[in-house]
């Protein structure tokens, strides 16, 4: 792995911004709600700006790890503070930045224990950012846990239906995941015989035997897979999402589930390629079961948040399927899907949260005709639904396309099943949209006002991101490509079923439409 040291520690600056925001929120006096919100918004805007900058400034020609910064932390155990981003991490930082900012603005109307909410929220984001940029196993684990723990309090204090159950279930499930990850990490560090926890160092100097890789990969796959919503470890996710307050659902479904997938990618697939190869059929089967299961259970749901929760399970299944193909396209698609799904789900939860705040119900049967009174809110809801279906022109279309092109080559039968199921899902989502936004307007909702302009900002940002990357997918594709091609090539000729050629020509043709 090529390492390019940073001229300026941009990555740590992001963490520092979050840490300063957190400290500021904590020292503000108890009743200064407005100040707390403004500080959080400023902090999230700054973090977003830096994330966008890093996304753009990442040198796509050079590839490898960039903006690398390093500091010895616990030398006696070989632990170092090592950050860096590659083509996989840069989109995730952008995603985190967008969801962080929009999440903060979405919670502008909060008035119960405001200071504590934003403090925990920023702490959570700090963990997420750290996790995406860390290259040291120790720090990856630390950030991973930092991003999970505030969740319990966030859901239990500010949540809605069945929150105590949802919060406890979510926390225990995710911590059960970390109960596999930590042994896996220590196992790798111990069997490598090197006194180091650093991923690049292990990648370069350690040679793990096949058995070690299989064992470790399974630990990481299940451990991180719980967070990524892999069937059958997904059941915390719908209940948790339903119980959580809007911004937390956004961040959780939008970003935290990606941490799980990213962990599989960064630790499992980078360090244990033989294990990845060995378990990939299992991954593919579980992923497709997840896709089918998520859609089928989603069909029976009447609560909007449950609908999104289960569709997240099936969308994360697409990510898993992409990883399981072990091809450049598959991995590209999976990472693209992580980004697209993150933005899309955040928009979905944000729109539903807004509707719920007004109507105090999320039952599809009770809603209806909302587009008449709330045209802006409904349109965001519809954009999210269309993105969820994978309509061309929106970001998730490209992601799903890439994954399925790869999957048809490697696992044709599984690909046919999942595409078929996704068509059913499309029909169902359209019906949800019709029942919520169109049809006769219930007199109960006739008095509702539409979204204020300020409240529309976060939704507009999210919708714009979906459309932007839907129209210009190559911006994302080129970036992910810089990381996925070396990864697949490092597997050797035996694996890596196909190169990026087919999709690349496809994209080139499409791009030629642009002047």
């Amino acid at each position, binding site marked *: 792995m090529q390492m390019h040291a940073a001229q300026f520690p941009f990555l740590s600056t992001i963490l520092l911004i979050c840490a300063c925001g957190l400290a500021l929120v904590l020292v503000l006096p108890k009743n200064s709600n407005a100040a707390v919100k403004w500080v959080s918004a400023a902090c999230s805007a700054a973090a977003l700006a830096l994330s966008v900058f890093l996304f753009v400034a990442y040198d796509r020609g050079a590839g490898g790890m960039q903006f690398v910064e390093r500091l010895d932390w616990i030398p006696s155990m070989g632990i170092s503070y090592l950050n860096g981003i590659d083509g996989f991490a840069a989109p995730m930082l952008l995603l985190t930045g967008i969801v962080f900012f929009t999440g903060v603005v979405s919670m502008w109307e909060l008035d119960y224990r405001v200071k504590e909410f934003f403090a925990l929220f920023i702490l959570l984001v700090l963990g997420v950012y750290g996790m995406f940029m860390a290259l040291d196993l120790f720090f990856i684990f630390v950030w991973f846990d930092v991003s999970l*723990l505030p969740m319990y309090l966030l859901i239990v204090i500010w949540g809605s239906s069945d929150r105590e159950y949802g919060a406890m279930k979510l926390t225990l499930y995710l*911590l059960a995941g970390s*109960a596999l990850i930590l042994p896996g990490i220590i196992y790798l560090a*111990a069997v490598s015989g090197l006194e180091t926890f650093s991923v690049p160092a292990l990648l370069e100097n350690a040679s793990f035997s096949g058995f070690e890789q299989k064992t470790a990969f399974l630990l990481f796959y299940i451990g991180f897979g719980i967070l990524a919503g892999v069937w059958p470890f997904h059941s915390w996710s719908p209940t948790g999402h339903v119980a959580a307050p809007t911004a937390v659902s956004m961040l959780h479904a939008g970003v935290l589930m990606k941490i799980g997938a990213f962990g599989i990618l960064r630790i499992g697939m980078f360090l244990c390629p033989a294990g990845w190869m060995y378990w990939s059929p299992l991954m593919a089967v579980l992923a497709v079961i997840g896709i089918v299961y998520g859609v089928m259970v989603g069909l029976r749901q009447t609560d909007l948040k449950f609908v999104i929760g289960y569709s997240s399970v099936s969308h994360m299944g697409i990510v898993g399927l992409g990883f399981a193909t072990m091809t450049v396209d598959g991995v590209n698609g999976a990472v693209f899907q992580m980004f697209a799904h993150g933005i899309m789900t955040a928009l979905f939860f944000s729109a539903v949260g807004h509707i719920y705040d007004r109507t105090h119900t999320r039952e599809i049967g009770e809603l209806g005709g909302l587009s008449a009174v709330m045209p802006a809110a409904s349109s965001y809801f519809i954009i999210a639904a269309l993105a969820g279906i994978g309509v061309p022109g929106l970001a998730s279309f490209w992601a799903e396309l890439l994954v399925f092109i790869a999957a048809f080559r490697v696992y044709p039968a599984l690909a046919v099943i999942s595409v078929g199921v996704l068509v059913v899902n499309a029909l169902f989502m359209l019906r949800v949209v019709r029942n919520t936004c169109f049809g006769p307007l219930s007199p109960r909702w006739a008095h509702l006002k539409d979204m204020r302009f300020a409240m529309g900002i976060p939704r507009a940002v999210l919708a714009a991101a979906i459309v932007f990357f839907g129209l210009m997918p190559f911006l994302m594709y080129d970036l992910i490509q810089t990381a996925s091609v070396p990864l697949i090539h490092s597997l050797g000729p035996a694996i890596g079923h196909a190169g990026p050629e087919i999709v690349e020509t496809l994209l080139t043709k499409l791009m030629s439409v642009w002047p």
Partner: protein
Amino acid sequence: MTDWILFIPELYTLAAAGVFFFFCLGRARPGRDYAAAMVLSAAGLVLTVCSAGFEGLIFEGVYRVDLYSQVFKVLIYSGFFLVVCLCADLSGVDETRHSEFYLLLCLCTLAMMLLASSVHLLTLYISLEISSYSLYVLVYLRRGSSQRVKPAFQYFVMGAAASAVMLFGFALVYGAFGSAHMAELMHQVPARIHEPLVFTGFVLSLSGFFFKLAVFPFHFWAPDAYEAAPHQVSAYIATASKVAAIAILVRMIALTGGQGDRVAWVLIFVSVASMTAGNLAALIQKDIKRLLAFSSVAHAGYVMIGILSANAMGYAGAVFYGLSLMVMKFVCFMVVVKASDGGRNIDTEALAGLHHRAPVLALALLLALFGLAGIPPTIGFTAKLLVFRAAMDQGLLWLVIVAMFNVVISLYYYLLVLKAAYYTESEGRPREVALSVPLKCLAGAMIFLMVAGGLWPGYMIVLAESMTAGLLP
């Protein structure tokens, strides 16, 4: 004659015990007792810290003063001092008994200091007995309730039985080697650990320390004793006493040189059994002190992982674990003492609304609970990382996974306590939790220690490693 200098902290503690002995003879004046205890324990702590660099062998080789023992003495003394800090409201103990309370606490501390330095089986036995006897009485000192008799008696009987078994084990070891000097045993035990006589003697002699640490088959006294004892005594048992037990257990296991496979399996069994039993039993506890008692049993299991790994990292991990346990358990007991009314026992619900009744205390509790659950970035995580890393070097992946799932189980009851403190709103007007300024500073220091131990543990790890370096062959 210069050798006596090495013994100064112990002599000082003995003198402090003498002071309280004279207080016992006069009229009860709780205020004076408390002030004297504060001053004497603080001065003693300073003295112990100053003596940290001492090194030598005294009393004809039965008493060894080295970095290992001195740091443990500092830890034990800090435990003593911290517990005394909680004694401003000693309403759990009858006022006429306060000076006796401090006297026994002093004696117990002295005995544990002796324990940390003992390198002869007899010194070991005697100091262990002195500390145990002080604790038997301390548990009984609870004011009023007649409930205290049974647990205190039970504690005594079990302790006596455990020490009898231990003595039998010592006898066997002595019979096999003709020596009770650890320095001599250290050279001979590793080669002969597979002999039935040596193996039996050795395992039996561990029982006394298992009892002290409340490891699985010897833990039944813990919940009852914690519940029945005054809060401060429970805190003392959970902090200083555990540290001393870890100190001596590490010394004993180091005797085998890490060669005994069968010894390791015995230890693995008690480790898994005690973390599982402790965690499962803690799930259903209502009384916070019982909950903490069972969590101590579980933590004894995690400590055992480091000890049974029998390598440098494992011993260092066990020592570090002792330190982290002391800090985290102390914070929990500080909350118990502050939140309870008149020294009565409290349920988890009594913490309701703690986050606005005492924000600093609530934050400290949050960190302590996360630390006990081994979640980064707290001191408890570093401790777990060290012992797990040590076990992994011995190829015990499955043991680490079992331990981690135990951690998840334990998280459930820690979260319930946390929920009470942060989420549940108290009904009616809750009792104010008044935190004096020094106590606030103490809580702040504990918060700092817990976070620093998670973020910058480098220094402490190096210290723990250099302490235990002498134990390895």
